[in-house]
């Protein structure tokens, strides 16, 4: 309920974790660049977005310590993304279902 009742701990992440995360990020970057030279049709963008989302999640979870944050921080990290999807989704529905006389 009251998230400030217990004292906040500093989660000091070890340097090693960061390096592992970094190596992972570099591998993913290499992958996404490599894939872009191949032709999968519409799947190119899908793959690119999945890879980008994995990278973004890793950055958020480890570099930004989201992994160690409380529920409300998670809520406010995720809610804007939900809204963004709704903005894009509903606007797309409008734009691509218009009847052309």
């Amino acid at each position, binding site marked *: 309920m009251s998230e400030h009742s217990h004292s906040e701990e500093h989660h000091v992440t070890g340097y090693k974790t960061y390096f592992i995360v970094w190596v992972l990020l570099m591998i993913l970057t290499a992958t996404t660049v490599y894939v872009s030279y191949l032709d999968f049709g519409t799947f190119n963008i899908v793959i690119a977005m999945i890879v980008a989302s994995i990278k973004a999640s890793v950055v958020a979870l480890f570099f930004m310590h989201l992994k160690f944050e409380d529920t409300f921080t998670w809520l406010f990290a995720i809610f804007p993304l939900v809204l963004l999807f709704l903005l894009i989704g*509903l606007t797309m529905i409008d734009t*691509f279902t218009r009847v052309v006389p």
Partner: protein
Amino acid sequence: MANNAVAANVYVSFLEKKGILSWLYTTDHKRIGILYLASISFFFLIAGMIALLMRFELLTPASDFVSPHTYNVLFTLHGSIMVFFFVVPGLAASFGNFLIPLMIGAPDVAFPKLNIGSYWLYLLGTLILLFALLQPADTGWTFYTPYSANTDTDVILLTFGVFVLGFSSILTGLNFIVTIHKMRAPGMTWHRLPLFIWASYATAVLQLLATPVVGITLLLLIAERTLGIGFFDPAKGGDPVLFQNFFWFYSHPAVYIMIIPAMGVISEIIPVFSRKPIFGYKAIAYSSLGIAFISFLVWAHHMFTSGISEVAATIFSFLTFLVAIPTAIKVFNWTATLYKGSIELHSAMLYALGFIFLFTIGGLTGVFLGALAADIHLHDTYFIVAHMHYVMIGGTVMGFFGAIHFWYPKWFGKMFNEAVAKLAWFLVFVGFNVTFFPQFFLGVQGMPRRYATYPEEFQSLMSLSTYGSWILGLGVLIMTVNLIKGLFSGEKAPQNPYGSLSLEWQVPSPPPLENFVEIPHVTDWPYGYGKKKEVDA
């Protein structure tokens, strides 16, 4: 309740310090609240006078007082100033600032420096507005493209001013959310929070997450005028309706940024003057959050005739009806709170009751506009104008006036003349209805909005509306004079003139510098009125 009494030698009122710099550099939330209150009231009066000029022009069908272009500039300024300089900061920034720390038992907001920084941003926005007045825009406050991208008037400065104000609003919202999360006094659990806090919280979330979208939209509009990008320009492959989608993604939630704090105010005033616990606390609290969330998903009901797709129109119409439900729940709960109460018709209570009355009309006429086929006929007519003003004046402004009359003794430590306040309320209430009720009929008959001149068949109702605006103006004038007079010659206010149980009334009037001599331990909710409950004396 009385054991927070303060020894006279310790108590220093927050108003004690004098000098303009002590105001401009203050980080005290109560002073910042006053700065906002003064600024928004100033802009309310300015925009109100512009409205009176417009109504005067509309007394007759022809344009015989100002030219059509001037009229267009006037309604643009009236709309922009009222929306962006008055109602959006409005109750949230003024009373939110003053009340949130007091109500949750905190010495100040979470980030006091950011708080005054937000006010400076607001001032910067007003400064930009001043320059924008040199060649004022004539686009309407909605800045629809492509008109706003092509007109010769200065759209860039005005939109940039709004952009800056947007950041002020975002930072204020951010500050409030963190304050409500992190600064509550021991024992002040979520379900013991006053409903004004719930309302402020819902508002702050909207400010935080909807405002940036209008920010980027206005930046894109500025880029369209300066760099020649074409997102909204059909000649370049863009889509003017996209602008409307983006604009209303903010501006519909913005309507709730304006009205939810007023709902919070009503939820505070009614229990105190009924001496009854608020009816359905959780229903009111969670309906604020419900409204806030759904309000993100209804924006295109402003665009049913704009050439959006039928599928989208249907989805948005459905979602629009959903937003009516939590609103209705609030109205029913307020009304039920009065049941078996001991009702005192104090001027603040009159404004609160007026709010319910007028807001119900505003809400019900909203149902017309949510229903697809009815909206097609009513959209962009005076029906919209009337509906919007019933919600914004009948709702927000009534709530704002109610809040001023309710917390005035606490904030300034003075009393105003209650009889004059009641008279002013009567004039405002009557004047408002005479001004705006005829506009529903005008709208149904097809009178379009934003017309500098109009066909003669509408004259009788149009001039009736103008006469009403004079009564309304007189009421506001009397109220303003009464309140200002109270500041100088009012009686000294007691600590808790209405016997309220909320925390802000348990400190002296005006509150001391850091609110509480000792941070209170809260053991109960603030609505424990009534006889089954032992109230500690």
